[in-house]
């Protein structure tokens, strides 16, 4: 397994940390490597500390990492905040005026930036050039990227190129002995896309036939609305910024009633405001997709940090019983796919579909083989014809009625009151029961026809089964590489829930470890509710930071140590150790007592 090389670039907000990090990522992918990025920033526009981690590897990278190999510090604060993350061999690239020390490779970033003719604004470009030099990369790729990035401002292309070259040359001339091959260009380079979840979801929505989106800005889905706003004229859909999230979901519902494929997106606070609209979509059987980008709550909480804390809220959002499909994505490529699925499912089942993502998915970049362009659009039982004796809410075995739209000559009422088959308000007992059953039966139809079997990564049977959903996926998959007898039950469907499959898989496993980015263990609660299995071992992290592979590996090893006498075998070899003495595992998540 190839080692990942971890770079952190830090500075104050406004120093272009993110754009430099993204450019470095593209240099890596255009050299035939893979990347993953993770950005930390406060809820400010200027000032405050920004840091971006870029992981580079010849193999796929799936998660951020605790360790740092190279710290690129554009200010002193970056060194103060991250020095303790550096291991013995790690190095710091910074301006000698800013900091001096044993790990430091000093380059006069500020002086070179000024000489290039762009002043302090070019420090990030000088640092990029120096980094490319230091890591044995190709300066031409960086120059091409500069040309592409500043195509609308050609006058600054040249100074940026000069700045990049001066940083590069300085390293080659002064630190030749420190140069590595980390960014060395491969022989054969397959093209890769770099996307974060906000890119993935926007592209998925466009590919999935989106016609209308109304989204009020809120971290972490703001990037999604920026993307959708930017491409609307090119692809012919409408993005509208509404006055609040209540309006956002009601506009989307209105557009959908009229026949447009519609979605909205928000974070927890905005989703609170949308719950009333969810019920409206539920009882009126109106397709609508709601993307819920979770961040650390409650209330304003920690707006620019991640959490998977709205899982139970999403499942229970809205008053009364109505069918609601709740999906969860684990990375940006999956978010691309699930947005397309969500749009189809909403149309097919004429009900709201919630897609859960979080800040880490929305904003972390990852390199992938190019996305699939072809896309199947399924509008379900939508009809644009005039239908004799039309009934919008006609009873049917699968719970789904033929859906018409206004203006097609069919009379019906899309009614938030309980209604009869045409849509007239009705509080009759028989009608209430039949309409309620009809709506709720859509979930069974959906589970039967569309819900996939949950994915298992690793061996089909293992001594330890990790169970999780969402952005922990990448870190768990990274950890799995080190433990051949651990597998991972990964969930993307939360409602309807694949209860039988989950029960069967967990029943086969001796020990279960639940991993979640929230305080309560909300997924474990869902699993207990649906399967009767209570999971005892958990990693619950709610500090806003991602769960790192290192933390999962430590937890797996701690279970191993607890299961083995102190003089026992090699750490990390769970296969042998659990197999040798399973009954002695402390805090054992044995599920045999939990089969209710």
């Amino acid at each position, binding site marked *: 397994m190839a080692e990942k090389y971890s770079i952190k670039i830090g500075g104050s907000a406004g120093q272009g940390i993110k754009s430099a990090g993204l450019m470095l990522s593209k240099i890596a992918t255009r050299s035939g490597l893979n990347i993953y990025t993770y950005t930390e920033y406060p809820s400010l526009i200027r000032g405050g500390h920004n840091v971006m981690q870029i992981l580079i590897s010849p193999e796929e990278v799936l998660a951020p990492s605790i360790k740092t190999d190279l710290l690129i510090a554009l200010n002193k604060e970056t060194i103060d905040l991250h020095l303790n993350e550096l291991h013995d061999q790690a190095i710091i690239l910074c301006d000698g005026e800013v900091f001096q020390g044993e790990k430091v490779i000093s380059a006069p970033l500020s002086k070179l930036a000024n000489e290039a003719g762009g002043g302090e604004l070019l420090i990030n470009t000088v640092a990029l050039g120096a980094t490319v030099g230091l890591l044995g990369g190709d300066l031409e790729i960086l120059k091409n990227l500069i040309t592409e990035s500043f195509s609308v401002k050609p006058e600054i292309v040249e100074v940026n190129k000069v700045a990049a070259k001066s940083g590069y040359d300085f390293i080659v001339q002064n630190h030749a002995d420190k140069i590595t091959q980390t960014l060395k260009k491969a022989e054969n380079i397959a093209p*890769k*896309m*770099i*996307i974060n979840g906000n890119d993935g979801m926007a*592209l998925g929505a*466009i590919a999935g*036939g*989106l*016609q*209308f989106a109304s989204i009020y800005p809120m971290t972490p889905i703001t990037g999604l609305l920026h993307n959708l706003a930017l*491409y*609307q*004229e*090119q*692809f*012919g*859909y*409408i993005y*509208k910024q*509404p*006055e*609040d999230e*209540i*309006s*956002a979901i*009601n*506009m*989307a*519902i*209105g*557009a*959908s*009633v*009229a*026949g*447009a*494929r*519609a979605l909205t997106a928000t974070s927890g606070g905005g989703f609170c405001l949308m719950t*009333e*609209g969810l019920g*409206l979509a539920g009882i*009126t059987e109106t397709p609508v997709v709601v993307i819920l980008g979770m961040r650390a709550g409650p209330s304003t909480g920690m707006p620019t940090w991640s959490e998977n804390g709205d899982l139970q809220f999403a499942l229970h959002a809205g008053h009364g019983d109505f069918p609601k499909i709740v999906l969860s994505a684990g990375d940006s490529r999956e978010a691309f796919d699930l947005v397309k699925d969500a749009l189809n499912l909403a149309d097919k089942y004429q009900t709201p579909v919630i897609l859960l993502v979080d800040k880490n998915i929305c904003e972390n970049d990852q390199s992938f083989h*190019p*996305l699939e*362009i072809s896309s199947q*659009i399924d509008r379900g039982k939508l009809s644009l014809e005039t239908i004799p004796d039309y009934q919008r809410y006609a009873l049917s075995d699968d719970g789904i009625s033929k859906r018409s*739209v*206004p*203006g*097609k*000559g*069919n*009379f*019906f*009422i*899309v*009614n*938030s009151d309980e209604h009869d088959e045409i849509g*007239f*308000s009705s509080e009759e007992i028989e009608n209430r029961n039949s309409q309620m059953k009809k709506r709720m039966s859509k979930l069974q139809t959906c589970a039967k026809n569309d819900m996939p079997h949950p994915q298992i990564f690793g061996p089909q049977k293992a001594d330890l089964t990790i169970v999780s959903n969402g952005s922990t996926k990448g870190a768990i998959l990274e950890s799995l590489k080190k433990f051949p007898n651990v597998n991972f039950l990964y969930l993307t469907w939360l409602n309807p829930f694949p209860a039988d499959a989950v029960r069967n898989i967990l029943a086969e496993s001796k020990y279960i470890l639940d991993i979640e980015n929230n305080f309560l263990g909300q997924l474990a609660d869902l699993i207990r509710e649906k399967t009767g299995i209570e999971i005892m071992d958990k990693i619950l992290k709610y500090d806003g930071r991602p769960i790192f592979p290192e933390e999962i590996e430590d937890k797996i090893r701690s279970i191993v140590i607890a299961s083995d006498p102190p003089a026992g075998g090699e750490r990390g070899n769970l296969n042998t150790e659990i197999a040798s003495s399973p009954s002695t595992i402390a805090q054992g998540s044995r599920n045999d007592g939990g089969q209710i």
Partner: protein
Amino acid sequence: MKLEDLTTKCKSTWCPGCGNFGLWGAFKNAAVSQNWDNTNTCLVAGIGCHGHILNFTKITSVEGLHGRAIPVATGIKLANNKLNVFVFTGDGDCLAEGGNHFIHACRRNHNLTIIVHNNALFSLTTGQTCPTTPLGEKTKSTPSGNLDYPIHPVTLAIASGATFVARAFASDLPKLQEIIIAANAHDGLSVVDVLQPCPTLNKDYTNQFFRENCYQLGPDHDVKNKVQAFAKSLEWGLKQIPLGILYQEEKPSYESAIIQIKEKPLIESSTNRNMEELFKKYV
């Protein structure tokens, strides 16, 4: 099209003498005269006594949530700008819980016709104060008298940027019909404030009160003069309630500025998209 074509199986549930009858009648007369039907029109209502109008009017409709009729109607209009979209909303519905939506819809000048059923009370919930209730009024939620100053829908509409603002009286069917037609013909956001009695719960604003105290704006009123219109909108008192078009302005509607729907409505747009060039940006 005949009046009977608009009849549904549902019998009216409004109290005898309710102002909603007049409004309903005037709207149906307008619909018959203009051929508003299931091929070209969509009605949207909020929650309140007014919302029941949808059950009695055979034109495709949406009964939304309390206060939220306007954003639903906005979504419908953006998705299919060929439709005539009418919003029926109560004074409490659109000024209390829906106040934010009302302001922003006016500001954006969507091509919607908003008809405000204004009885100065929350009536479906049996008579509490609402944003149009007069100061000092005793209601079930203000037994010692209302402490909130009222606001007129027309004042808020003009201040918020609506481009057609009118007021009518529910029991004057011909005038109301005329104004509803003019409001719908206007390209942009139109608000028609319809004063209506609630004989069950509002003993002050009776049919007789409105008959005695309303007057029609004459030719001396310049509908293009926003300052004059605003001043008129604030006028309220004995013999001092102006009716008619208070304000009208020619201004491009929101929908007319969207290139995506210049040629055909959004719902007819192609979703078969070639994304190759866009994907390249991410390589």
